């Protein structure tokens, strides 16, 4: 079976078939992300004034990720240029850089996710605490007690969703006795909405007994509309980064055999994967201001 026009341009389109294919795919991707952006616009505009979160993201990390992706877009282009001028050593170097930068991006994104998932908003029972009705901060530890033996177990590890579930009941014969967070007390949720306007937030270690906890929830996608959009859009984008990395990793690794057989065909594959990578960078160019700055 022959693949037509994999190297030379097709006479009627003027470009090789894979390039038409990737542009058609990118067109469908525009509509995919476009649907999410339109959902963002709809929810953002429909939110009453003063109720949309500000300053919930780490702008420094977001900026760093923007720069990481910008540099990776350049290394991807240079990898293609290296193929064009038949310098395979440079191609390997630039594509290795792209892979490392992609890994850095995912690590930073993973850290941001972890930060959100270990951040808790704890609603306290009425009048139980003079500091405020809500405790907000990052999980530091929890103490569980066995009601029969009175044995206490302290955990410093983050338990994700199960932790929030445990806060309301019993698991493995142990009951939650207290939760410790590094945070602060506030009187209402409004004080947690616009963090950017608050110059300095004093955080201390707060130990909250189980009896004072009405309910608690981490800052996951279930927390509110903003975080639902944030996690959906950035996770989909991160999946694209992962997918692109796999393709680039394949071209850098086992796929490089094609270079010895048909370098122009290989160069075209590098170009096509590069176009996808630049598109992923383009999406981030809009995700960053929309989710971190606005």
């Amino acid at each position, binding site marked *: *079976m*022959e*693949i037509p026009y*994999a*190297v*030379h341009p097709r006479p009627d*389109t*003027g*470009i090789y078939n894979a*390039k*038409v294919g990737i*542009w*058609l795919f*990118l*067109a469908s991707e*525009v*509509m995919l992300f*476009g*649907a999410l*952006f*339109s*959902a963002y*616009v*709809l929810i953002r505009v*429909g*939110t*009453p*004034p003063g109720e949309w979160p500000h300053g919930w993201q780490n702008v420094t990390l977001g*900026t760093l990720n*923007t*720069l990481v992706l*910008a*540099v990776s*877009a*350049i290394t991807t*282009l*240079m990898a293609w*240029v*290296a193929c*064009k*001028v*038949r*310098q395979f050593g*440079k191609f390997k170097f630039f594509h290795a850089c792209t892979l490392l930068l992609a890994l850095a991006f995912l690590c930073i994104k993973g850290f941001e996710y972890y930060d959100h998932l270990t951040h808790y908003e704890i609603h306290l029972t009425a009048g139980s605490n003079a500091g405020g009705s809500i405790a907000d901060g990052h999980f530091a530890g929890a103490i569980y007690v066995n009601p029969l033996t009175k044995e206490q177990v302290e955990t410093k590890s983050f338990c994700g969703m199960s932790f929030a579930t445990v806060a309301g009941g019993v698991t493995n014969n142990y009951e939650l006795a207290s939760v410790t967070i590094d945070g602060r007390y506030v009187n209402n949720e409004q004080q947690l909405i616009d963090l950017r306007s608050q110059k300095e937030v004093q955080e201390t270690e707060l130990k909250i007994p189980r009896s004072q906890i009405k309910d608690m929830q981490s800052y996951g996608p279930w927390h509110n509309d903003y975080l639902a959009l944030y996690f959906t859009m950035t996770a989909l984008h991160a999946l694209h980064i992962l997918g692109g990395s796999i393709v680039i990793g394949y071209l850098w690794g086992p796929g490089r055999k094609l*270079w*010895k*057989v*048909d*370098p*122009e*065909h290989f160069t075209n594959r590098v170009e096509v994967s590069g176009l996808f990578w*630049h*598109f992923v*960078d*383009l999406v981030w*160019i809009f995700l*960053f*201001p929309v989710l971190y*700055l*606005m």
Partner: protein
Amino acid sequence: MSELKTAEQHNAPFVGKSDLHEHTVDFNNYLRRCVFVLIAVLCAVSLMLVASYLPSERFDWPAKVAMILAIACTNAFVVAGFLMHLISEKKMIYTLLAFTAFFFVGLIGLTVWAMQDFPAGTVTH
């Protein structure tokens, strides 16, 4: 199953310098272009950050959003134009992108249009 091979078998194998394709790509020229793009992206990101931290007393929220989105669009144009070679692409790609833009604008336009279409008695903010 038949063996997969490209239609342009005359192009293989590659040994040393290729004489089958003209290599008009200049490595150093591209490197300079990339430095230019990186500087442009750095400037755009800095401007976006500055715009987002402008005092709310002097710049209202819609103005800040417009500024940030305008800078993001410029940034995207630089990346798409120079890194994706959109400033010098074939007509076929432009046609394809024109269709994409049409449907994208339609998608966002319908969303904005739908926001004005409230059922009777809806409380709006």
